[in-house]
């Protein structure tokens, strides 16, 4: 594996190997070794064409805990807005000797372009490209599910996961569908029909337009961030109507099964897709997702840059 552009780059075994490495890294950290020397002298560039403080500091923290040098390159104003082109930016990073480039970009496919174009020889890690994929988010979500539901071998057969919200525009949803299915879970997409992608029948998922009928039968309820401006594009009539039909409020939270968990990739719109009750409940694993994000990203950097598949 030279790049991580899509969950499709990972076989089931490779995904489990990454998750296992992440768990081992967690054990080492808890043992008091917060910083490992593994990537000393290697440089990791965080190339962010979109603002995302959370994802950037998660990758930065992961790289630093492996002793890599980190360069943050905030390149807002990509060629999409006719600034410097992706190609020129990439060649600049190449000239500076980057070993890995973590890219967040508003255009779907930008990470793959960077990896395939021949502009650069570094490993490319997709930290979210447009409405396409966000593979490390899916990995950290799978890690968190396994941790909270005590599935130590990452075999998710029989697990029922509902992904709720703006599936159409969500890279988190696309990557999660791919990875959860790879691990054996049964995925249900829950959204108004306007926010379900065309051709979803080929994804091998269930689709349910009615959150109330689904919520009591799920082991994992994964809420997606909804942009309230979507109503201006006629995807739903109003933020309040969306919230009433697809928000995770106290009533729906109370109908969830005893062991089930609530996830959210953040940042949350409290009061819109998730109520404060739900966000702060015992079922919410949102902060564990943040913690695990660093471990999973350490595992990705470790495997890509050291070439080793385990510690």
């Amino acid at each position, binding site marked *: 594996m030279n790049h991580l552009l899509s969950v499709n780059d990972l076989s089931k075994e490779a995904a489990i190997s990454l998750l296992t490495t992440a768990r081992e890294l967690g054990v080492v950290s808890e043992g008091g070794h917060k910083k490992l020397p593994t990537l000393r002298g290697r440089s990791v560039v965080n190339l962010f064409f979109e603002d995302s403080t959370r994802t950037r500091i998660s990758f930065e923290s992961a790289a630093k805990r492996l002793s890599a040098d980190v360069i943050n390159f905030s390149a807002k104003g990509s060629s999409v807005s006719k600034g410097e082109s992706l190609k020129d930016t990439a060649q600049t990073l190449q000239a500076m000797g980057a070993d890995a480039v973590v890219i967040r970009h508003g255009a779907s496919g930008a990470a793959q372009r960077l990896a395939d174009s021949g502009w650069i020889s570094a490993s490319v890690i997709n930290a979210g490209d447009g*409405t396409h994929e966000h593979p490390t988010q899916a990995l950290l979500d799978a890690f968190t599910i396994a941790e909270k539901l005590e599935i130590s071998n990452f075999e998710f057969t029989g697990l029922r996961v509902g992904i709720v919200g703006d599936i159409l525009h969500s890279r988190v949803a696309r990557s999660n569908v791919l990875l959860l299915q790879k691990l054996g879970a049964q995925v249900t997409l829950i959204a108004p029909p306007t926010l379900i992608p065309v051709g*979803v029948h*080929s994804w091998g998922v269930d689709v349910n337009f009615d959150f109330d009928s689904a919520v009591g039968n799920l082991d994992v309820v994964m809420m997606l961030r909804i942009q309230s401006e979507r109503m201006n594009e006629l995807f739903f009539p109003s933020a309040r109507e969306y919230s009433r039909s697809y928000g995770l409020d106290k009533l729906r939270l109370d109908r969830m099964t005893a062991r089930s968990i609530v996830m959210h990739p953040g940042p949350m719109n409290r009061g819109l897709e998730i109520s404060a009750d739900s966000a702060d409940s015992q079922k919410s694993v949102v902060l564990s997702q943040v913690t695990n994000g660093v471990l999973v990203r350490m595992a990705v950097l470790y495997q890509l840059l050291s070439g080793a598949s385990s510690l």
Partner: protein
Amino acid sequence: MSYLIKAATLSDGAVVDILIADGKIARVAPDIQESNSQIIEASGLRALSGLVDLHTHLREPGREDSETIASGSLAAVRGGYTALSAMANTSPVADTAGVVEQVFRLGQAAGLCDVFPIGAVTQGLLGEQLAEIGAMATSSAKVRIFSDDGKCVSNALVMRRALEYVKSFNGIIAQHAQEPTLTVDAQMNEGEISSRLGLKGWPAIAEEAIIARDILLAEHVGSRLHICHLTTAGGVELVRWAKSRGINVTAEVTPHHLLLTDESVLGYDAVFKVNPPLRTEADVHALRAGLADGTIDIVATDHAPHPSEDKDCEWQAAAFGMLGLETALSVLVSTMVETQLLDWAHLERVMSHNPARIAGYESHGHPISEGKTANLILVDPLAKRVIDRNKMASKSRNTPYDGLTLPAVVTHTFFNGALVHEVDRGAAK
């Protein structure tokens, strides 16, 4: 200069000699003896009337970095075209007599083929006010085709008026069928692949809704409608229905929509970004069937050069369009002739005769026969070539076929009796 073409095979299979003199086809007969002409051995070569393109973006005036009328003309004759129709979306837009006359004259100055300008339907392609269609029609360029191509004349009243207005000189409106409200920021065909790739979809219905509306408008006002670059199975059905009702509609298909599908987009290589977008396998089959059964009248290239910086970038940032002039005939031989969907006579009709008749290009698109203007080509149907983006006559390199081996090589192109293109046949094999 006169030329004697020996033992060429006409599209109907007859093997003949063809004598070209004084710009005309002087004789067509089995065995012509003539000593003062340059002899061209054409045994095994097909002789076809020169190809006619009704949909070419030549970028001049305005974007001479991506193509000029001269470079586009050279690409044309290499591809076997003796007549081009320059689309109006230049800068400035070809919406006045001055611009269309300039384009026409630049074509004559290049001297390799005829370049007939297409006039804009509306001022600035904005879809609001009619351009001075009459002035363009009566200019020295004698414009007959009007199109806002690249943009759709989406306002139904504007489209109705345009269809009616051109009736006075038997003009035709060529519509780029794309309902704009259904295709805001659209990037590729809407379907399973766009959903997987996270690229905003351009649904087939956005094309079909406009085709359906325009067919009914054309029937209502009794005008001629031409539908540019048909891409969907549903669109083919609509045109078939319109023709069965006797509505005066013609339709074109591009070579790339006959060969490529939206699966080409999977690697996000923007060379495959084109408008209308590459569709599905089922659409490709429907287009081929439509061309074979006469529902689709012509092949048009939609040759759309772009500089590399507009393609060598993120998909979303890239320009729409691909080269077509130098590869069109090869793609048609590959998709339609070798598959036995079309014979050579039918191929000659859809690439030469029919477009010339639709546009009224009188010196083009006639069967090869005595007395006609000598616009004709010779084609080696058995030769193969590997397409190389760096060896294009076009100033741009955005061919989607780079590295692909395609059949048929245009060995000679005659324009008004002059030999304007010839390949070294030893090298072509």
